[in-house]
């Protein structure tokens, strides 16, 4: 069926003590998905930022494995990824998985959601919502036309792409404004709100949409910072 591979990050960024976490010996986190899937990549990036060991169990979309009864029991919408935690707890939706991992493994690796200050948390939520409202569907639409459709033997609708690009460009003008006064979308700390952009942002660049970032100095700077993080480089090397 699917193949699995073990990956672990060898560079925890932040250690609170030297005691080996019991999580390392109890069982493994299993991610169900595909390395080429943007949503799966979101989860892998988070796992690696947190320094968490995991296994990737491939759910082959082309072969319809996402519609098998056993997978649908895990993820009733039949999309990838899904994740089983070490104790068998199952969760799906990439952003929910990432948030859960951050909450559960708060003290491991990079801190990805600011805690302790309600205003700062509120601004994190604002940034996380910005990604969903103003980036995700436009980037996804462009990438679907220019990359995924092509992979399936179809032709991109370039009128649709132009419309999406125009709207995304307007939104990125606002990003440029926001990022002119702070380093990251939620403030001065890298958070999940930035990380969530990585998979589709990288695919936009792959299909030649560089101008969206290049022409906006603060967006460009922000993109360079977040896309050169070690965790993201590791995910890209897996694909």
């Amino acid at each position, binding site marked *: 069926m699917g193949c699995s591979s073990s990956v672990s990050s060898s560079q925890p960024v932040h250690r609170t003590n030297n005691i080996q976490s019991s999580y390392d010996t109890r069982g493994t986190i299993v991610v169900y998905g595909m390395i080429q899937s943007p949503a799966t990549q979101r989860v892998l990036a988070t796992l690696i930022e947190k320094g968490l060991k995991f296994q990737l169990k491939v759910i082959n979309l082309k072969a319809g494995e996402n519609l098998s009864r056993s997978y649908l029991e895990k993820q009733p919408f039949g999309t990838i990824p899904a994740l089983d935690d070490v104790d068998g707890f199952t969760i799906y939706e990439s952003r929910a998985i990432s948030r859960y991992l951050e909450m*559960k493994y708060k003290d491991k690796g990079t801190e990805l959601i600011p805690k302790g200050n309600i205003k700062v948390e*509120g601004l994190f939520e604002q940034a996380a*919502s910005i990604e969903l409202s103003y980036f995700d569907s436009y980037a996804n639409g462009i990438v679907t036309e220019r990359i995924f459709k092509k992979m399936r033997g179809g032709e991109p609708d370039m009128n649709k792409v132009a419309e999406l690009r125009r709207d995304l460009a307007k939104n990125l003008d606002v990003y440029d404004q926001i990022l002119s006064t702070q380093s990251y979308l939620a403030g001065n700390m890298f958070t999940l709100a930035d990380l969530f952009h990585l998979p589709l942002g990288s695919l936009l660049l792959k299909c030649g949409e560089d101008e969206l970032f290049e022409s906006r100095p603060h967006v460009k700077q922000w993109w360079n910072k977040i896309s050169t993080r070690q965790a993201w480089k590791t995910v890209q090397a897996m694909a």
Partner: protein
Amino acid sequence: MPIKVYGTPTSTCTQRVLTTLIEKGLPYELIKVNLAAGEQKTQEYLDEKQPFGVVPVLIDEDGFKIYESRAICRYLELKYKGKGTELMPTNDVKALGLFEQAASIEMSYYDPMKGLGDPDEAKIALYREQLNAKLDVYEKILSKQPYLAGQDFTLADLFHLSYGNRLVKLNEGHFFESRPHVKDWWNRITSRPSWQQVLALA
């Protein structure tokens, strides 16, 4: 200074915030933004309120400003935890994870159907097909638990109210009515006094 919400009572996103404020028992002032006149696109609004040019925006008692309706609702729950209805689970990481899953379901599978008001027939046909497929899954989920995140009403359910109401107003309520568990859930969440109050404002 009371909590101020900039928006309109008929805006679906503003309605989300108002419902949350009422659930938490928080007094607020609704300052109407004239959407028809394009007030939200003026330079003043963009500079001072919301740089993407949409509503709502909330300014808290201490002057703290936040936008994006779902972020505002989450912020209110965090800030005023212990007041009114609890709208997100506390402390239990699994319960919080399942809440996040439900909140993401709303964004991934439900929110896109706001396109149902589109004039393009081909697009509407596609939205219907997608919405039917997604609500079939909701039916499965809700056959095992009363609310999307589990046993309790949360923001994940609340976020569905305003677009669901729009569906019903477009005479598309059959999407809910035709699925017994979805129907029960929809009736339960729409009959909450907070939502009834927001509807009365519109």
